[in-house]
C-alpha cells in the first residue's frame, strides 16, 4: 500500500485529505507543522507528499520542500496553495514541487493527481508500447490499434489517449487533461474537453467495440478495458 504524507496546518482539512486519500487506498500520515513534516518525511519513506504552501511556525511549505530536496528526499510533492498566481505556481514547481493545486479544490482532483504522481514512479519510462485490453499504442510510431485495426487520430487526440493510457484504471480530471495535453494552466470551466473526449471515444469504439474511456461523474475520465 502506497504511503502518503500530508503536511497541512489545519487539522480538519488534514483529516479530510487523509480520509479522501484513505478511501482511495493510500496509507496516510499527517503532520501539522513544517518542522513535524520535515522530521516525518526525513525519517520514513513516502510515495508522495501533500504539502501546504503556507504553514505557520516559521518553516513554510516552500522552505520544507527545498530542505527535503537538499537532503535527498525524492518523493513527488503536490503543493496545496491558496495563492493561484502563475508566478506562485512557477515558484512552487521550481522549488522542487511536482504538481500544484489551488484551494479550494475538489478531493477527487487531489486523489487523482496523487495517484498519477505515485504511479509515475512505478512505471518505467522506457516503455515503447502501451496496452489496455485490445488497445495498443505504439509510442514510437504513434500508431493506435484497436483489436488490430488502425485508428486514425489527430495529434491532439493521440496525446489525450496516450495520457489516459499511461494511467490505466485511474481517474484523470478534466483540469489534469487540459494542463497535460494543451499545456495551459487555468481552471477550464467549459465542456469542450468532454467534446474532445467524445470524438476520441467514437473513433476508438467504431465498429461496435465496448467503450474504453469511461466518464466518472463529477470528476473526469478513466481508461479501463473490459475484463
Amino acid at each position, binding site marked *: 500500500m502506497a504511503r502518503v504524507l500530508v503536511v497541512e496546518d489545519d487539522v480538519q482539512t488534514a483529516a479530510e485529505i487523509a480520509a479522501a486519500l484513505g478511501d482511495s487506498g493510500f496509507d496516510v500520515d499527517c503532520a501539522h507543522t513544517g518542522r513535524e513534516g520535515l522530521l516525518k518525511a526525513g525519517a520514513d519513506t513516502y510515495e508522495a507528499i501533500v504539502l501546504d504552501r503556507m504553514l505557520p511556525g516559521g518553516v513554510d511549505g516552500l522552505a520544507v520542500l527545498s530542505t527535503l530536496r537538499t537532503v535527498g528526499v525524492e518523493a513527488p510533492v503536490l503543493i496545496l496553495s491558496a495563492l493561484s498566481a*502563475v508566478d506562485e505556481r*512557477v515558484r512552487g514547481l521550481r522549488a522542487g514541487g511536482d504538481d500544484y493545486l489551488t484551494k479550494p479544490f475538489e478531493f477527487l482532483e487531489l486523489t487523482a493527481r496523487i495517484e498519477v504522481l505515485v504511479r509515475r514512479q512505478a512505471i518505467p519510462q522506457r516503455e515503447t508500447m502501451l496496452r489496455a485490453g485490445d488497445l495498443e499504442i505504439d509510442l514510437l510510431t504513434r500508431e493506435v490499434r484497436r483489436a488490430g485495426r488502425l485508428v486514425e487520430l489527430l495529434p*491532439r487526440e493521440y496525446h489525450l489517449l496516450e495520457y489516459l493510457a499511461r494511467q490505466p484504471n485511474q481517474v484523470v480530471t478534466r483540469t489534469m487533461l487540459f494542463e497535460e495535453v494543451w499545456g495551459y494552466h487555468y481552471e477550464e470551466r467549459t465542456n469542450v474537453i468532454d467534446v474532445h473526449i*467524445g470524438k476520441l471515444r467514437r473513433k476508438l469504439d467504431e465498429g461496435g467495440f465496448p467503450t474504453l474511456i469511461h466518464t466518472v461523474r463529477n470528476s473526469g475520465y478513466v481508461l479501463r478495458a473490459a475484463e
Partner: protein
Amino acid sequence: MSSVRLSDLRRTTSFRLALMFLALFGTASLTLFGFLYWQTAGYLKSGTDEWLAREVTSLVAASPSQLIAHLQEHAAHDPEANRPFALFDAAGNKVAGNMAKLPTPSLPLDRPFEFKLNRGDELLPFRGLARRLPSGDIVIVSQNVHQMHEFRELLVGAMAWGGLLVLIMGLAGAAMIGAGSVRRIDEVACAIERIVKGNLAERLPTRGTAGDLDRLVDAVNGMLDDIERLMHEVKGVSDAVAHDLRTPLTRLLAGLERAGRRAASVDEYAAAVDEAIGETKAVLSTFGAMLRISEVEDGARRVGFKSLDLAAIAADVTEFYQPLAEVKDVSFSLKDESGGSAKIAGDPSLLFEAIGNLVDNAIKFTPSEGRVTVRVFCQDENPGVMVTDTGPGIPAEEREAVLRRFYRAERSRHTSGSGLGLSLVAAVARLHGLNLFIDDAKPGCSVILRREGASTWRTLAAAVT
C-alpha cells in the same frame, strides 16, 4: 487674511521659498553693488592719481626759476586752492605755491597719499603726491577729493536705502504669497476632510490656473473619480455576488434539508449528495472566477511575462474549440494575417483563457450554420486578435455594460455562464496593454483585442495603478 496665523505662514512652502529667493536676490544685489562701488571708486582714484603724477613730472622737469614762476601762475589760477601746489625746501619751509605748510611731518615720497586741510571752518580731504628735487627741495601737488568722497557716500547711502526697500517689499510679498497658499491648502484640507467623512462625490477645489497645486489637485481628483467608480463597482459586485451566490446556496441548503427530512433510502441520500456537490461546484466556480479577475486586475502577474506569438495561442484556442463548433454546426476558422509578427509580452494561460472566452461566447451565441472567425493581425507593429461571429450581436448601448462583472445581456439570460467572462477578458487585456473593443459585424459581433500604438505604456501604467 485674518484667518492666517503667523505660525502657519512660516511653515508654508511658498513663504519659505519667497524668503529664500529674497535672501538669494539680496546677496546677489549686494555683490553687484559692492562690485560697482569698488570699480567706480577705483576709477575715480586712479584718474586723480594719474593727473597728480603727470603734474608732478612736468614740474620736476622744469628749471628752478621756471618752477617758481609756474607755481605762482598756478596759484593765481586757483584762488580757492582746490588744487594746492607748493615747493618746500629741505627744512620744510615754503618756497612758493598756495599751500601754507607741509601737510604731514613725515611726508611719503613718490606715492599718492591723503591728508586733511582746513578750508574755512571745515576740514576737507586732499590727495597729493610729493617728489624730492636733486637740490633737496620737495615739490607737492594735490587735489581736493571732497567731491569724490561725497559721491562715494551717496552711492553707499543709495545702496542701503534701496536694499531696505527691497527687503520690505520682498517680505510683504512673501507674506502675501504664503497667506495665499495657506488659504489654498486650508480649502483643500477642508475638502479632503469632507471626503474622508464619506462624501465621495466631493472634489478638491481648483482655480483653473494650471499651476502646480492645480495639477496636483487635478491628479487627486482623477484618483477620487477612480475610487468612486471602484466603490460603485464593488457595491455592484457585492450585490451581484449576493444574488449569484445566494441562489445556489439556498438551493443547496433546501436540497440538503429535504434529504434530511424525507430521504429514506441510500439511493435518495446519494442523489441528494450529488445534487449538493453540483451546487457547491457552481458556487466554487463563480467564486474562483471572481478571485481570478481581482488577481488579474492587481497586475502582479506581469512578473511572469514572456515573449509570445499571439498567432500560436490563437491557433491553440482554435484547435481546442474546433470540436465544439462542429457539434453546434458552426463553421469556425483561424486567419493569421500577422505573418508571425504578432509578438507580445504576456502570460500564455491568461491569453488563452481570454481568447478562449471570446471564442466560447461567439460559438455559444452563433446559430447553427453560422460562422465564427478568429483573425490575428499586426498593424504598425501593434498586434491584435479579432473574434467575429454571425450571432445576434451586442446593441451599441449595452457594449460598455457587458464588460462589467456579472452583467448578462438580455439575450444571454437563458444561457449558462456566470456573467464574468467578458470582465475577465477585459482585465486580461488591460494587464497586457491591449484595448478591448466591441464592434458591429453586421450581422453579429466583433470583439477586438488590440494594442494601441504610443498609448501602450500609458495603458500599461494605468493598469498598474
